[in-house]
């Protein structure tokens, strides 16, 4: 029987990063990565298959990184684990291990709306063949309905809308698209951007059924409205793939994900889990977090991969940082929005500042950028931030996330020593984060009397 010191099951963002991290921390160990897919899709790139990138074949993670890190690859399905004897059973035979990392990812969620099983109804399945089939289908149709106005839904809708003569409608049950991640003012603006690009938006709309005679023909809403549809795509989230963990008798949490502690260890001390398959807790309050993002997966993988033979890192919980972009407009969020903060009981103070991200504003590449920061009033600690503007929003939000993670205060941020340049950043006088923090401090003082 073959044996490896470390086996990683799963070859996407979490599995790959766990393998690389294990190599960095344990250079002398033999590492084997087991995955069933011949080709691994870049998960965040999936919406772009249908427009910008052009095909699933152009959205793949290369295997060169495995070779570079001296990680062996076994293309096989992991079927079960003999935990007592520390053996992984696969469709290509058994392999022994000292430590095992499960990074089996997630599958798309399907709401049981009547008609979910009609021909022409798709989920965002991370599979090259499945997505190629969807892409071919899209080439022949006119009316496309995307159910779910989260970031996957809007990116999919926008990309599909770019190719050919199509009518794309996004149906969202909440009052606004992206409402789970952004405050209302940002959602409204992004909806306007989408509508300007020709996409129909139906918010506050629950889908009653997907109707058709064997094949999808229309989507019926609970208010009686109907939308013609040749293809319906569900983009409402993902569910942890715990098949292997459950078969092995590992503990599954109430969220349906593999239960792990802060070191990413499962209920078996020799088995770790990371990524979409592993249970997450929120940075704020420690309750289970439903977020599933590749960036979270890789963080967890850097924890799991480092801790295999002794604790070196711990998970402080999921802050929740991500961005989306439609055309030239980027929207990014980290931590709690003002609305979420108030819902959770924080006495929140929010400050928003807008202005160009170059100085003077006539410099090439200048885009109006809006930054909103949210603080807890009594402590002044930052709870979150949102950014809307050009591509730099994606990096500004990472700086905000670092502030959140380190529980910095408005005063800390107001005292930032920033580097600025006319061709690269906002003016030092109007630097967004610093000025938003100053505005928040003023509000806190006014309230404090």
């Amino acid at each position: 029987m073959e044996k490896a010191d470390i086996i990683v099951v799963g070859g996407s963002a979490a599995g790959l990063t766990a393998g690389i991290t294990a190599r960095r921390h344990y250079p002398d160990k033999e590492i084997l990565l087991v995955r069933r897919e011949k080709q691994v899709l870049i998960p965040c790139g999936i919406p772009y298959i249908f427009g910008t990138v052009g095909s699933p074949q152009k959205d793949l993670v290369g295997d060169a990184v495995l070779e570079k890190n001296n990680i062996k690859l076994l293309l096989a399905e992991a079927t079960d684990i003999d935990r007592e004897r520390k053996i992984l059973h696969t469709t290509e035979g058994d392999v022994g291990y000292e430590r095992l990392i499960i990074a089996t990812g997630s599958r798309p969620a399907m709401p049981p709306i009547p008609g979910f099983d009609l021909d022409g109804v798709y989920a965002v399945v991370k599979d090259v063949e499945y997505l190629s089939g969807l892409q071919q289908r899209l080439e022949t149709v006119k009316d496309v309905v995307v159910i779910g106005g989260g970031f996957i839904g809007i990116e999919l809708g926008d990309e599909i809308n770019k190719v050919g003569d199509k009518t794309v409608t996004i149906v969202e049950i909440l009052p606004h698209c992206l409402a789970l991640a952004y405050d209302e003012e940002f959602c409204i603006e992004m909806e306007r951007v989408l509508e300007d690009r020709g996409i129909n938006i139906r918010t506050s709309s629950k889908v009653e059924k997907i109707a058709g005679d064997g094949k999808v023909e229309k989507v019926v809403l609970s208010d009686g409205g109907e939308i013609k549809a040749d293809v319906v795509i569900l983009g409402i989230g993902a569910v942890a793939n715990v098949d292997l963990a459950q078969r092995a008798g590992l503990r599954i949490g109430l969220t349906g994900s593999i239960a792990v502690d802060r070191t990413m260890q499962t209920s078996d001390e020799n088995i770790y889990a990371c990524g979409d398959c592993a249970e997450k807790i929120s940075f704020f309050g420690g309750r289970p977090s439903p977020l599933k993002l590749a960036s979270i997966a890789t963080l967890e993988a850097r924890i799991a991969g480092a801790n295999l033979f002794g604790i070196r890192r711990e998970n402080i919980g999921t802050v929740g940082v991500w961005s989306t972009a439609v055309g030239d407009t980027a929207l990014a969020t980290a931590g709690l929005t003002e609305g979420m903060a108030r819902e959770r009981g924080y006495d929140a103070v929010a400050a928003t500042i807008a202005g160009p991200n170059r100085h003077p504003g006539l410099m090439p590449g200048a885009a109006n950028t809006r930054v909103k920061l949210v603080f807890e009033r009594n402590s002044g600690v930052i709870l979150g931030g949102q950014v809307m503007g050009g591509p730099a929003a994606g990096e500004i939000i990472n700086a905000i996330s670092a502030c959140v993670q380190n529980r910095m205060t408005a005063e800390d941020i107001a005292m930032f020593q920033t580097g600025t340049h006319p061709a690269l950043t906002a003016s030092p006088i109007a630097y967004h984060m610093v000025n938003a923090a100053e505005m928040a401090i003023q509000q806190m003082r006014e309230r404090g009397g």
Partner: protein
Amino acid sequence: MPKILVIDDDPDFLLAVRMVLEAHDFEMEAATTAEEGIDKVLSTEPDLVILDIMLPTGYEGFDVAREIREKHKLIDLPIFMLTSIHGTKKVPYRFAPDEHYLPVDVFLDKPIEPDQLVDTIQEMLGERREEPEHPL
């Protein structure tokens, strides 16, 4: 003694679950159809419902969950959906709790280890018990 209502049309499963639950000091009621299930939700007032999806004529478990929440307004009754639908249907997606479309608290696939079954129920009931009666 907490009362668990199990709505499932598989007699072997009901028997196995009864043995596990009763060994852990739970009282168990059983129903094998959607109608009987709804009747017993109302008549036996269980502390928690374990609900299958594929009952005798189709995907009735989905409707039972919606009926409990929407028609009978039992918003706080914990519902634990336990099913083999994913193994049977071989679909590339997964059903999961959804506030709007599938109002259950926990969704797990069969088969389930007895320990996991008991842990999950205890955790679901425990969570409810820990909630303060009135906001602090």
